[in-house]
């Protein structure tokens, strides 16, 4: 461990890691958890939001991340934006030992949105330069691209293993989490190590709904060997913006390429429209050979609930039933909700077994 490498924390999933790496910093995503109670202070500061955001704020206020050199907060959900608004003031008051910067990357694609996102990424780069004291140049951007693209290749290989029963959902989720919080070299190692044969005969299930900041639910789902999570469309799993970089001759072109890449990638539930989300979910579920889909939606994470009727329809067209559990309270029953969901999937598959096969 070299204590000298500055780490820049990230809340949300709109940061191109290449830019952070090019200034000599390590991007470290902060994920929160689905299994703890939010402190009264964080709850009061944020108002009513997805508990995961409360736990991210708790982590920051508790001093657990005081060794960060800076923090980037994405406007990719209302909850994360509130974290930014609160931290902007607390940072000014000296409550945080590092500066905080907003990354505002809208999702509606247009030439003007691309310029706006490009400006945001330029400012993100400046922020990282200030924090690290290292200016990015074409060489460092190129080097950062090579490192990050290696992560992308490792992830592609992992997804291939996952499709062929050589990597469980829980192992993949842990690899995604590790990759989002470590230098590319460690990320490649973590992703490459994600090899865990799936239980023979396990039902392949595609997970949608809220994201999974910790592997608790995946572990519970796969523990009995009845089910394997073969893919997901949330931003802490397959949808996470990792392993993407742009090679171009100038800084401006790299940034513009990243802005275009952002606007072109599939949206998470909060930024996306239901129709596009449903088409994406169904396509991915089919490619992953899922036999069923399971939507687990946390209380106060409302966006995924608006996708459900469309997802149900699109999945149904491909012969994949969707089972949904919504308004799951964080500290209480995510695992129970997931297990109920699995039972319902099994009942559903049993009742249609004769019809499908």
């Amino acid at each position, binding site marked *: 461990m070299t204590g000298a490498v500055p780490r820049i924390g990230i809340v949300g999933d709109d940061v191109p890691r290449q830019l952070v790496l090019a200034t000599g910093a390590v991007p470290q995503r902060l994920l929160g958890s689905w299994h703890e109670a939010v402190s009264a202070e964080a709850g*009061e*500061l*944020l*108002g*009513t939001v997805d508990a995961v955001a409360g736990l991210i704020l708790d982590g920051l206020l508790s001093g657990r991340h005081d060794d960060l050199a800076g923090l980037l907060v994405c*406007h990719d*959900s*209302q*909850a994360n*934006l*509130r974290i*930014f*608004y*609160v931290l*902007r*003031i607390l940072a000014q008051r000296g409550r945080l030992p590092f500066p905080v910067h*907003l990354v*505002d990357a*809208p*999702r*509606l694609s*247009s*030439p*003007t*949105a691309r*310029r*706006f996102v490009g*400006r*945001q990424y330029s400012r993100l780069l400046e922020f990282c330069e200030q924090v690290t004291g290292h200016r990015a140049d074409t060489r460092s951007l190129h080097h950062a691209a090579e490192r990050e693209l290696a992560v992308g290749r490792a992830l592609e290989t992992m997804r291939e293993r996952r499709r062929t029963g050589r990597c469980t959902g829980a192992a993949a989720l842990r690899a995604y989490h590790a990759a989002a919080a470590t230098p590319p070299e460690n990320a490649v190692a973590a992703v490459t190590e994600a090899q865990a044969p799936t239980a023979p005969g396990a039902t392949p299930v595609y997970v949608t709904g809220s994201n999974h900041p910790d592997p608790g639910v995946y572990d519970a789902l796969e523990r009995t060997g009845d089910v394997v999570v073969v893919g997901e469309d949330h931003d802490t799993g397959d949808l996470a913006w990792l392993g993407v970089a742009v090679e171009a001759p100038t800084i401006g072109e790299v940034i513009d390429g990243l802005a275009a890449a952002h606007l072109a990638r599939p949206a998470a*539930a*909060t*930024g996306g*429209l*239901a*129709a596009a989300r449903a088409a994406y979910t169904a396509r991915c579920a089919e490619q992953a050979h899922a036999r069923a889909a399971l939507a687990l939606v946390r209380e106060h*994470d*409302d*966006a995924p*609930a*608006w*996708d*459900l*009727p469309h997802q*149900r329809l699109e999945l149904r067209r491909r012969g994949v039933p969707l089972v949904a559990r*919504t*308004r799951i309270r964080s500290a209480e029953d995510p695992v129970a909700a997931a297990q109920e969901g699995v039972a319902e999937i099994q009942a559903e598959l049993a009742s249609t077994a004769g019809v499908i096969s």
Partner: protein
Amino acid sequence: MSRLEAARAATQHQKQWFADMAGRARDGDPIALVNADAPHEVLRAFDVPYVVNQWWASIISAKRLGPASMRMLAETGLPDHSQQYDAMPLGAQALPLDQQPWGGLPNPAFAIADSHGDVTHKIFEQWGRRPGTETYLLSRTAADPVPPRWWELVPYEWETAFGTDRLDLLQDEIDDLIGWLEERTGRAFDEDRFAEIMRLANEQAEWNRRTRDLLAAARPAPVLVNDTMPAVMVPQWHRGTQWAVDAARRLHDEVAQRIDDCVAVCPGERRRLMWIGRGLWSDLDLYQRFHKDFGAVFVWSMYLAIAADGYVRYGPDPLRALAARFVGLTDLLYVPPWSAEWYVKEAQAHGVDGVVHLVADDTPGGRFISEALEAEGIPVLEIRANNADSRSSGAARIPERIADFLRERVPAGD
């Protein structure tokens, strides 16, 4: 205390306007459904009547059709618990026509909204799936930067207030929206008419500002705050018309007349109060309950104050000005430190002795508002009436808590 004539006139006008609009729609004219933060003035320039989603929700909920509307959503598999107020009109549209308020909202040709929060864009996407309705969505950027004293910046120096990047994006999107509407209506965008609409909107804001300033200075308070609400809000939905300017002026003149006539809602006024947060519409008497025992009067209305400070935009380019009006309108009210600074400024201007702060759970950093007021020596009572089930029990205690607060922390002036 007799009601403001301006409030009565506004309410009456709104009914007539709705009937005319619905008639036009039934004759085949396109109408639009928009959310409160969308650039309405563009539609006015196209002569496309628009209904504001939040206003329509207030009518639906006043007719107690909220739960039935949410059930309609649930029946199609959509959530009935999420951003209910914004989603309610979508559900109400599926109710049998004879149950809908005011004879029903004719199906809009256009549904236009900014992508605010996590689900507004999804609600409006659903409108676009209804036959005959198309959706147009605008981006919603975040409040960054937040330079101090926004109310001094927004009339002219909006580039400083909101930042050029945000304005560029919204202006380009409005431009695109104009092209979208030209294609669909077969009408050309009339720039002169648009410029005139923007001029009228500023004139309306100027009257609101004068009215607010009158009320800030008047001792004792000549109007009930809840009475100014319809007199301010209804004309806001007609912003950019001569009627709206005249309505704002009528309110001003009526307030001025009352001051001249020494009208007092509470002649024994000894404490001036400010209510911050969502109105407790279920208990409008609440605002007058402390007259008798405490001489305590609520003197400030968020609706008038934001109409006075939030909307005015002067400048040579009306399209840029329109982008500057909407790019961060709700941020001014809800995002700290902007919100907190503004509440302090308003409390001081109105000579407020104490603040009752109903802390919203749908905005962050409520505490910063209370802290900013207390730091200026203005006592604050924070009320956290959170989730639905505590509503009845929590709300029941609010009057007692206000009374205790007045006794313990708000000394009577003279």
